[in-house]
């Protein structure tokens, strides 16, 4: 009996240890988006230039949908030039970069756009509707939507040129339709 009981404690602790080992290896803040692989939610915003910005009009192109804010330092400041140069380099091959400024003041957002000479369409998100519809937690977050309108990737945090290229290139190579 004594021998058996001596083993009981460690044996009972094993599943608990396994559970803890599993749980502590996961990052509680890294939440996988359930939206990857699903159709991108439609939206129509009005850009800072006053132009309508309708996601549906970009069907057939690879869309990089970037949520940002002017107060998002330094991540948004780091990735703004990356986004602009990707847009400049690949727009002829069917790449579109769309910026959505969330939880920001319009003047501050416009200052940000001027500071980085962003030439891709940018729009504010009044009421945060689009950002909530995309399950956005914070800024920056970037969704990559393929030519068929399916969300193929979500990136949280500042994008690097390499990471963006690795995600976008295979999608650009896909045929539209």
């Amino acid at each position: 009996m004594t021998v058996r009981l001596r083993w009981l404690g460690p044996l009972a602790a094993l599943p608990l240890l396994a559970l803890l080992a599993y749980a502590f290896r996961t990052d509680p803040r890294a939440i996988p988006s359930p939206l990857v692989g699903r159709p991108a939610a439609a939206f129509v915003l009005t850009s800072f230039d006053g132009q309508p910005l309708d996601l549906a009009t970009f069907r057939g192109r690879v869309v990089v949908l970037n949520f940002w804010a002017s107060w998002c330092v330094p991540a948004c400041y780091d990735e703004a030039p990356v986004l602009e140069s990707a847009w400049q380099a690949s727009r002829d091959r069917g790449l579109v970069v769309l910026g959505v400024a969330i939880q920001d003041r319009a003047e501050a957002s416009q200052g940000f756009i001027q500071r980085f000479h962003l030439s891709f369409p940018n729009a504010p998100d009044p009421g945060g509707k689009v950002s909530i519809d995309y399950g956005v937690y914070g800024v920056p977050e970037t969704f990559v939507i393929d030519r068929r309108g399916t969300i193929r990737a979500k990136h949280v945090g500042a994008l690097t040129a390499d990471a963006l290229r690795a995600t976008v290139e295979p999608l650009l190579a896909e045929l539209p339709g």
Partner: protein
Amino acid sequence: MTAADLGPLGRPARAARLVLLGAAWCLLVAGPAPASAGVSTAAPVPAPVAVSEETVTRVASRLRCVVCQNLSVADSPSEMARQMRDLIREQLAAGRTPAEVAQYFTDRYGEWVLLVPPARGFNLVLWALPCLGLVGGLGAVLIAARRWSRRPSLPEATDPVPVPADRERIRVELERFRD
């Protein structure tokens, strides 16, 4: 466990009954929790009517504020939470049920957004673990208590009957004392 280890016959049975009782109590406690956890039990809100702030708060308090640490959408003062409350109000006013609103957020943020995750699949660990711990602990205490109570007690103190050697020693000591 040998036959000699089994104290009075009633003990193991009583121990088992107590463990069962603990388990039953656990079920009782955990049972209603998932029911109250599902927003689906809430009464559906009829189509376009004025939405009470209480309903908004009730839905919002079950959702995790996505930009906070351990705060509900109802409790958070953040801009994002305010926008989420506005959206909840809007959707309720459009005739959606609280369950549908919760589902809207779950579809976008995953089950993570629910402060009370539904009791199914891997989540069951959350409900089962405390109960298993309680039942296990109760069992351990019972076993330990039984072992302690069985520990060989010291021989009962009776009127000392000195053995002849002691008697002789006492006599010698007393004589020395008298001298």
